[in-house]
């Protein structure tokens, strides 16, 4: 534990730069000097998928209605973002007063929150996954609240919830009961480790609960020999991965319903299991010889060269998984330091791709590589390696990410001019496509902003009913 951390009281003032601080490159600049034949394909793809044409195109999930009834958890919001980006009508059903995640802000700093026109303050974590979604409030702990939900259910395609295991079933709004009302309903439960099975009662709401329980944290960070400890991801990684798999599950159920099944089904996905699915070879390795995956810092157990190592002004990633790239990397190094290239390339231990994988071979490789990168800035190393078409890139911090010309040009980062929150810089939809691209229309709603619209439209409530429910704490 370090004592050197600067305290909250001595925080420096930060100058906010406009975005983009440096204008994005223009089409002419990007393709300057490229032969017609070479740029023909790029120009075709660009004309097919460029986001500025999004509004002219249809949306693949237009007409699908999703109720996102998750609160206090990231995984459900992340999951429903997939549907809202592709055009589904996603309605967030929040407890009266709003989802507690709305209020989360780094270190509790109020000045980091986004203020809506009506004065409500919302944290960035919530706002990032409220894109294109509507917001209603509903108290499902009341009899009337549940009756109101049941009224809406016949018109819903997908319902997402994250109540404690069996809680909604006990309340009479679980899949068993709601499928009686709407057999075509796809009912998705999301959580950290599952609503059934021996671990179901060990609830935990937020990452890194899942990260710790499935081996991710144990395997991330530097090994003990290098002074490292288990490390969690800086973002709620399991929630994100689990949320994406949950979306695949729900989408598969929806497709099956339309294709042949004719009815909905019960779907479940958890944050931990999402990452268990994708954590490489951990299980096969354990099953073959009892190995426990060790931490390996910023190097890779199974590929060499494929690592992030220090350089003159930060850290640089260099990757070359197969022979062709291996020799290109050393050729680049050899331009400055031929003795390094020669000693590595003549090493009989490093002739075959797989022979380069044992730990001591990796030490030899990366120490030699760092002997070269120590004199190079990220930019210099990147440029030199790219001349040989080797994949490399510096470790970027957020300001560099936001100003990265490629992102700016392609619209990966964009400003959304929101009705409530004004201009917000945001990461764009990951769905890029020719006919049905994903898009962001607004960043978020204030708590219960769409109560009147949704309850009038879907439940036929009138002014009197709405007022009564509001007074009774139902909505």
């Amino acid at each position, binding site marked *: 534990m370090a004592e050197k951390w600067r305290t909250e009281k001595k925080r420096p003032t930060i100058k906010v730069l406009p975005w983009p601080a440096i204008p994005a490159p223009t089409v002419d600049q990007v393709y300057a000097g490229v032969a017609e034949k070479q740029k023909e394909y790029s120009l075709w793809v660009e004309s097919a998928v460029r986001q500025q044409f999004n509004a002219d195109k249809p949306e693949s999930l237009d007409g699908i209605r999703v109720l996102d009834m998750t609160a206090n958890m990231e995984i459900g919001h992340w999951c429903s973002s997939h549907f809202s980006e592709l055009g589904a009508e996603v309605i967030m059903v929040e407890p009266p007063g709003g989802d507690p995640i709305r209020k989360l802000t780094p270190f509790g700093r109020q000045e980091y929150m986004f203020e809506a026109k009506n004065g409500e303050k919302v944290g960035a974590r919530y706002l990032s996954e409220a894109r294109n979604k509507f917001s209603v409030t509903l108290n499902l702990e009341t009899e009337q609240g549940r009756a109101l939900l049941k009224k809406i259910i016949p018109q819903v395609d997908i319902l997402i919830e994250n109540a404690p295991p069996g809680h909604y079933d006990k309340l009479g709004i679980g899949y068993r009961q709601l499928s009686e009302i709407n057999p075509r309903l796809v009912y998705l439960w999301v959580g950290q480790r599952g609503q059934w099975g021996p671990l179901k009662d060990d609830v935990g709401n937020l990452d890194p609960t899942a990260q710790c329980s499935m081996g991710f944290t144990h395997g991330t960070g530097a090994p003990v020999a290098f002074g490292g400890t288990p490390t969690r991801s800086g973002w709620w990684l399991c929630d994100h991965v689990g949320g994406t798999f949950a979306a*695949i599950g729900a989408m598969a159920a929806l497709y099956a319903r339309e294709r042949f099944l004719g009815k909905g089904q019960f779907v479940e996905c958890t944050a931990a299991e999402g990452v268990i699915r994708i954590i490489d070879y951990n299980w096969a390795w354990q099953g073959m010889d009892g190995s426990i995956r060790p931490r390996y810092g910023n190097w890779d157990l199974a590929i060499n060269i494929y*690592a*992030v190592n220090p350089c003159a002004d930060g850290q640089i990633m260099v990757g070359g998984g197969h022979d062709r790239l291996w020799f290109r990397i050393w050729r680049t190094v050899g331009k400055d330091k031929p003795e390094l290239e020669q000693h590595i390339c003549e090493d009989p231990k490093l002739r075959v791709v797989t022979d380069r994988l044992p730990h001591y071979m990796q030490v030899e490789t990366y120490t030699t590589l760092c002997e070269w990168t120590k004199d190079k800035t990220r930019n210099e190393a990147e440029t030199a390696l790219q001349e040989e078409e080797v994949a490399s890139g510096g470790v970027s911090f*957020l300001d560099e990410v936001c100003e990265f010309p490629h992102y700016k040009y392609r619209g990966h980062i964009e400003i959304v001019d929101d009705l409530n929150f004004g201009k917000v810089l945001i*990461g764009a939809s990951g769905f890029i496509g020719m*006919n049905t691209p994903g898009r962001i229309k607004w960043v978020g709603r204030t708590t219960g902003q769409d109560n009147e619209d949704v309850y009038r439209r879907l439940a036929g409530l009138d002014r009197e009913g709405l007022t009564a429910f509001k007074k009774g704490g139902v909505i």
Partner: protein
Amino acid sequence: MVDKSLKDMTFEDYCRTVFNTKKRFDKPEVLKGIRAISTTQYILGPSCAAYLAELGAETIKVELPKRGEPMRHTTPFNEPFLYPLSRWMPEKGTGLGFFGANPNEYFLSLDFHKPEAIQIMKRLAAKTDVCCENYRAGTFDRWGIGYRQYAQLNPRLIYQWMGGFGGWGPGRNRASYDILGQAQGGCFSITGWHKEYGGMPSKQTIWIMDYWGGAISAFNVLACLYWRDNVSGKGNFLEYSQVHGAQRHLTDFISLYGKTGIVPQRFGNFEPLLCVHGILKCGKSSYPNSKNPQEQEVGFCLVSAYKDEDFQKLCKMINRADLGKKYPTHADRVGADAQTAIYPELEKFAADKTKEEFDKACKANGILSQPVWNSKEVAANEHWHMRGTLQWLDDPTFGDVLTQGPAYQLSDTPARVRWAFKPVGADNEYILSKLCGYSGSHIAELEQKEII
């Protein structure tokens, strides 16, 4: 509609019945009759096709003859391999880096540089629903087997291109890997400890940008299949850029940067948004007598007590009621100064405990906690096996392997694992005779000419 006999069960029994992993093969597959070609390598592209194969799509993986794709030659520390690599190279094996990204697929070997191979690809594309590809942008177009050519043959085709920087824009010629996405997208910069704590930017240990990128691409493919079959009848061209995916995870930090200009730094195992919600070092190893260095390490445990009443319980548990008085509300606790003052006190309490002892103490006091498990502890846990997330698979080629199952559960049309993967070119005859109409002697000739 729920069966009558299921109505009266307890919820737990109900779930165990409808999600019963032993009954997965009794139920239909979502993508039965959907065909996908996977001309992919490494992890990003293959995993996208694999998620479709788990759902029942007939997925044909096309890779180069002889050595197969590069991922077959990666394995942790050069130790475990599964044999044979192919019928032509039985003495070589496939490394476990290939594992997990290619289940349920059919394996065709094909040298794209030969004109006969282009003919085969076109015959396949004419009867295919989805094509996943992750060669350098424009390469397949140049070879005459890109989306523009396929669309002439099969306008209903959904073509998912995946890769580093995308086919257009300033970085279009740059190659990419998973960790390049993580590095360039900013994921490194917020993971690990700050350098003032002796830390440095750290990678997420798994090939997350590849596997997750494959997942989000597979979702987009499913959405396009839905749109094609129910709405428009049209195919689609989709592009997924890996570096884009990386910064999609950091959306909230991007918004914060835009508003306040702050560049988020690393806060290690603590959580800037919540306190107490962090991973603590426990002083003792859980397996002091084990010979495995991984088990000799001291333990770590997550403790989560950010609600006021939970925090008070936690302070009582460590006999520091004064902390409870000093930091009564969440706003008092969550500041950086408060967090760096609170966690060392908790670690003092944990200094003479194993992670299990600390976990037990928390649970006894009604506080949420989770020990940091290693892959052996996870693999031994009945929970994951019961849910089919981990399973021992009797693989037809490789025998008894422990594999991951599908990440999600579907009650009526579950995804499933049929086999882990197959050797290079294992299904050449099956695919070429079934889908391309080639005779036995023609296939033998192709093999002799090293086209397959």
